[in-house]
C-alpha cells in the first residue's frame, strides 16, 4: 500500500477541539500532552480515510467494520483501562489523576482478547436474552455501559457519543 496523502492541520485541529469538548462534557479527559494527542487524532483521521471509521491508531484494523467494532474509538476497553491504568490503550483518553499530573502515562498491556475469544465470535449467546423486566428491550452501550429501555438503541450514545452499532441487547 503506498499512501502518500497527508492529513491537514485544520482537520486535526477541528477534531482535536471537538473530542476535547465532548470528553470534558461527559466526564472524560483527553491526554494533556497536546503534541502526543494531536498525533493520535491524526491517526484517527488517517484511519477514517482508510477504513471509513475511527479504528484505534495503536491497533491493527482489519478493514472489516464488524470485526473492528470493539476498537473503534472510543473503544470497548477504554473505561476499564482508565480505571486500571489511568489511560486508554493508545492514551488518547486519560484519568483525572493523569490529567492533573499526579500520575504518569505509560504504554499499557493490550486488554482486547484474541480474535477467537471476543464475544462476537463466540457461538450462541448473542441472541439469547431473558425476557426483559420491562415492556421494552434494554440496550447497553458497550463503550460506557449506558443502559436504556426502548425499542431501538439511540443513534448516538448520549453519554459517550458512541454510535448505534456499539450498543448490545442487554435484556
Amino acid at each position, binding site marked *: *500500500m503506498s*499512501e*502518500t*496523502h*497527508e492529513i491537514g492541520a485544520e482537520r486535526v485541529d477541528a477534531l482535536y477541539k471537538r473530542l476535547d469538548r465532548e470528553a470534558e462534557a461527559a466526564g472524560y479527559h483527553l491526554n494533556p500532552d497536546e503534541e*502526543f494527542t494531536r*498525533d*493520535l487524532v*491524526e*491517526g*484517527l483521521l*488517517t*484511519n477514517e480515510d482508510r477504513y471509513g471509521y475511527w479504528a484505534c*491508531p*495503536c*491497533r*491493527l*484494523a482489519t478493514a472489516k467494520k464488524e470485526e473492528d467494532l470493539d476498537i473503534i474509538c472510543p473503544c470497548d476497553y477504554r473505561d476499564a483501562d482508565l480505571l486500571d491504568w489511568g489511560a486508554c490503550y*493508545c*492514551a488518547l483518553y486519560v484519568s483525572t489523576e493523569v490529567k492533573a499530573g499526579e500520575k504518569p502515562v*505509560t*504504554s*499499557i*498491556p*493490550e486488554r482486547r482478547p*484474541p480474535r477467537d475469544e471476543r464475544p462476537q465470535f463466540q457461538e450462541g449467546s448473542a441472541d439469547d436474552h431473558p425476557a426483559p423486566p420491562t415492556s421494552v428491550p434494554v440496550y447497553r452501550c458497550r463503550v460506557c455501559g449506558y443502559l436504556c429501555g426502548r425499542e431501538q438503541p439511540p443513534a448516538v450514545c448520549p453519554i459517550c457519543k458512541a454510535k448505534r452499532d456499539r450498543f448490545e441487547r442487554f435484556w
Partner: protein
Amino acid sequence: MPDAKGSVNGSKSNHKIILYALSTCVWCKKTRRMLEQSDVTFDYVYVDLLTGQEREDAMAQVHKWNSAASFPTIVIDNAESVAGYKPARLEEVLGL
C-alpha cells in the same frame, strides 16, 4: 507517511533489531525515536502499510514473539522481544 519497510543505520550495530509498528501509533513513533536517538541500527516494518501475504507473514512474526500481537513489538537478535514502549527495558536488552 513512512515507507512500509526499511532500515535505519546507526553507529551501533551489534544487535539485530526489528521494530514491528503501526504508522498511526504514537507509542510506535516514540519507540522508533528512542532507537534513532540511541544510534542503533534497526529494521522497521509498518504492518498497517503492508497488504496480502507480506502482511500475514509480518503478523505471524509479531504473534510469535508477542501473543497479544500488539504494537510496537521489538524483536532483538531473533532471541527475545519487548512489547510496548518500554525505554528502560530496551536499554537493558540492548546494553545501552
